[in-house]
């Protein structure tokens, strides 16, 4: 850390980049666009499935797809979650992490074809896996539902597509490092490790009995926090100071935030098993880790909200498309951390267990935080890579409002609706039919917000694809900007 000032720029601020397309960016343009375009296609598919799942969940017997085996809630919900996580989340962060570390490390991606190959394999394996889910060949553990032969293929594809940020970090010309780099390197290394170990113990060499469920809970917490969380945090650390043109407040705390985040995140898994037939010490470890996770949440809150609070940062963020999305995400992350700590405790957890509350927390992290940050990043990166402007300002507005309102409404419906649902479930005198009836209003909200999200994503896709097509029409026009 001591050498950082010698590089001549203030701490807590990413290096200045050229506004024109640099050699670095020209090199990674191909793989970036492949990852990004496939991510958006998967996002659209997941949003359509999200609408179907919301309709199904509301009324199993009278839903529009009753009696249709292909579209039972079990299939649609699993396919939707997998597409959103592996299709959208991974492809988008492949693109963004690669871009970030290439920028920060002045890295020229010479073997771009390897990344492209990795991306192609990843998406093919994913397509196969989702088809298998609909064909009834799904597993019983959330986010490991793909048939087991898909696992090793995804792992190899990840190494080809997602390992470049680490190479970029190793080859950077300066000694200086920035917070974004640590988080991306951590995410790119933690995920393949987690995925291989979880595959082994859950699918290939199943551990006995409930140990499967323990391994699964560890896997899910790592996937959500160490891939989605860490990658999105890296992006916030980059874009806030970059666009505002100032340093991160309290940047000296960032290393503490990084290490505590990685130290505690992986222990939080068992807090998803409170009350389950697993050892009590295990559940307690999960609860304690969830509370300790408040340390990095507070550090990032000081860093992000502190930066935004000085010198009318909030209003400037509101007037900048990228920062509007990114600061929305930063607030969502703080909220997620607080809820995660509070509702880990046994008394509260007993109420919301087995309700939609946990999906609400996951949605806060993966959508309201990570996805909004990715959107913001796309508004910054895509014009540079394609050399053209966003075709329609109106669509940008539609995108933001639909995504923001949809995200808030979904989170409220899942969290508040889940809490109410849990209160009623805890009272044995309320029959299940009464519980279902009371929840139907929240299901309406969920359906409307699923439609809202779909609208937002279509607006984003139209705008982004229009821009990419426009720039690729004259082959070299974009290169010179």
């Amino acid at each position: 850390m001591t050498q950082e000032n010698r590089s001549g720029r203030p701490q807590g601020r990413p290096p200045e980049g050229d506004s024109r397309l640099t050699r670095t960016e020209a090199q990674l343009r191909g793989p970036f666009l492949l990852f990004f375009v496939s991510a958006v296609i998967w996002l659209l598919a997941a949003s359509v499935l999200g609408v179907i799942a919301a309709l199904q969940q509301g009324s199993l017997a009278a839903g529009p797809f009753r009696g249709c085996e292909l579209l039972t809630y079990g299939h649609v919900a699993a396919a939707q979650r997998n597409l959103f996580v592996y299709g959208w989340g991974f492809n988008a962060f492949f693109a963004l992490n690669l871009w970030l570390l290439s920028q920060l490390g002045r890295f020229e991606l010479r073997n771009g074809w390897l990344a492209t190959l990795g991306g192609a394999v990843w998406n093919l394996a994913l397509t196969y896996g989702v088809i298998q889910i609909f064909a009834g060949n799904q597993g019983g553990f959330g986010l490991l539902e793909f048939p087991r032969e898909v696992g090793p293929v995804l792992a190899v594809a990840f190494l080809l597509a997602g390992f470049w940020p680490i190479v970029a970090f190793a080859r950077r010309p300066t000694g200086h490092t920035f917070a974004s780099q640590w988080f991306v390197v951590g995410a790119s290394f933690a995920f393949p490790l987690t995925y291989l170990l979880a595959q082994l113990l859950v699918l290939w060499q199943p551990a006995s009995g409930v140990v499967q469920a323990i391994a699964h809970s560890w896997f899910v917490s790592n996937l959500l926090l160490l891939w989605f969380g860490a990658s999105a945090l890296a992006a916030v650390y980059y874009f806030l100071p970059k666009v505002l043109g100032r340093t991160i407040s309290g940047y000296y705390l960032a290393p503490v935030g990084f290490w505590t985040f990685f130290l505690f995140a992986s222990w939080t898994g068992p807090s998803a098993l409170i009350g389950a037939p697993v050892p009590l010490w295990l559940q307690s470890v999960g609860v304690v880790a969830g509370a300790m996770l408040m340390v990095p949440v507070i550090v990032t809150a000081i860093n992000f909200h502190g930066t935004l609070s000085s010198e009318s940062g909030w209003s400037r963020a509101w007037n900048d498309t990228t920062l509007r999305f990114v600061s929305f995400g930063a607030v969502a992350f703080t909220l997620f951390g607080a809820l995660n700590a509070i509702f880990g405790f046994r008394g509260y957890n007993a109420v919301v267990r087995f309700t939609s509350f946990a999906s609400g927390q996951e949605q806060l992290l993966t959508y309201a935080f990570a996805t909004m940050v990715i959107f913001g990043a796309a508004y910054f990166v895509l014009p540079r890579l394609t050399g053209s402007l966003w075709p329609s300002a109106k669509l940008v507005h539609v995108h933001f409002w639909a995504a923001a309102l949809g995200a808030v409404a979904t989170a409220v419906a899942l969290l508040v609706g889940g809490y109410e649902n849990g209160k009623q479930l805890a009272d044995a005198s309320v029959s299940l039919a009464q519980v279902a009836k009371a929840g139907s209003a929240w299901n309406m909200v969920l359906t409307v917000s699923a439609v809202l999200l779909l609208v937002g994503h279509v607006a984003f896709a139209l705008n982004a694809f229009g821009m990419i097509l426009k720039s690729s029409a004259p082959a070299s026009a974009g290169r010179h900007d």
Partner: protein
Amino acid sequence: MKNLNTLLAGVFLAVALPFGALVISSQVQLGSLGRAPAEEGGPLFPSREPGLAIQGRAVYVSLGCVSCHTQQVRPAGQGSDIARGYGVRPSVARDYSQQKQVLLGDRRLGPDLANYGVRAKELAAVHEAIKHQGAFEFLYAGDKKQVASERAIALAAYLQSLRQDYSSPEAKLKQ
């Protein structure tokens, strides 16, 4: 923070230590659980699963039933599981020791099924429940959807095999 090796070593430990402490150590603690009598000389529980029930579990998994149904009874004081009649005692790890795939579930859009076999007295009622008021009629054939397919028969056998109503060394039933 500038040294890649330090960074990677730190992240490796941050992921591998919890794996060892949470997953491997619980495998050590629970991995050898098997069938056991509640008292010396008593019958062994949990019972071995009938072959048809094993096939039925595959149907249960492939239809994604786990996204709406749990199979676990929480201890008294956490929720109303026992009061609702989902079981007479909390589930313990040994109850799952004979299952190739453990389907604890984390969402209750429908009732818990850990003791469904105890509650379901008649086969006809089980099939009626599987149909979910018509949503799962594709598992049945015939004009009135009365003829159960192989999958439905296996699924019903699996559901009837689900029971945790015996005494176990970790969770004795009060006499």
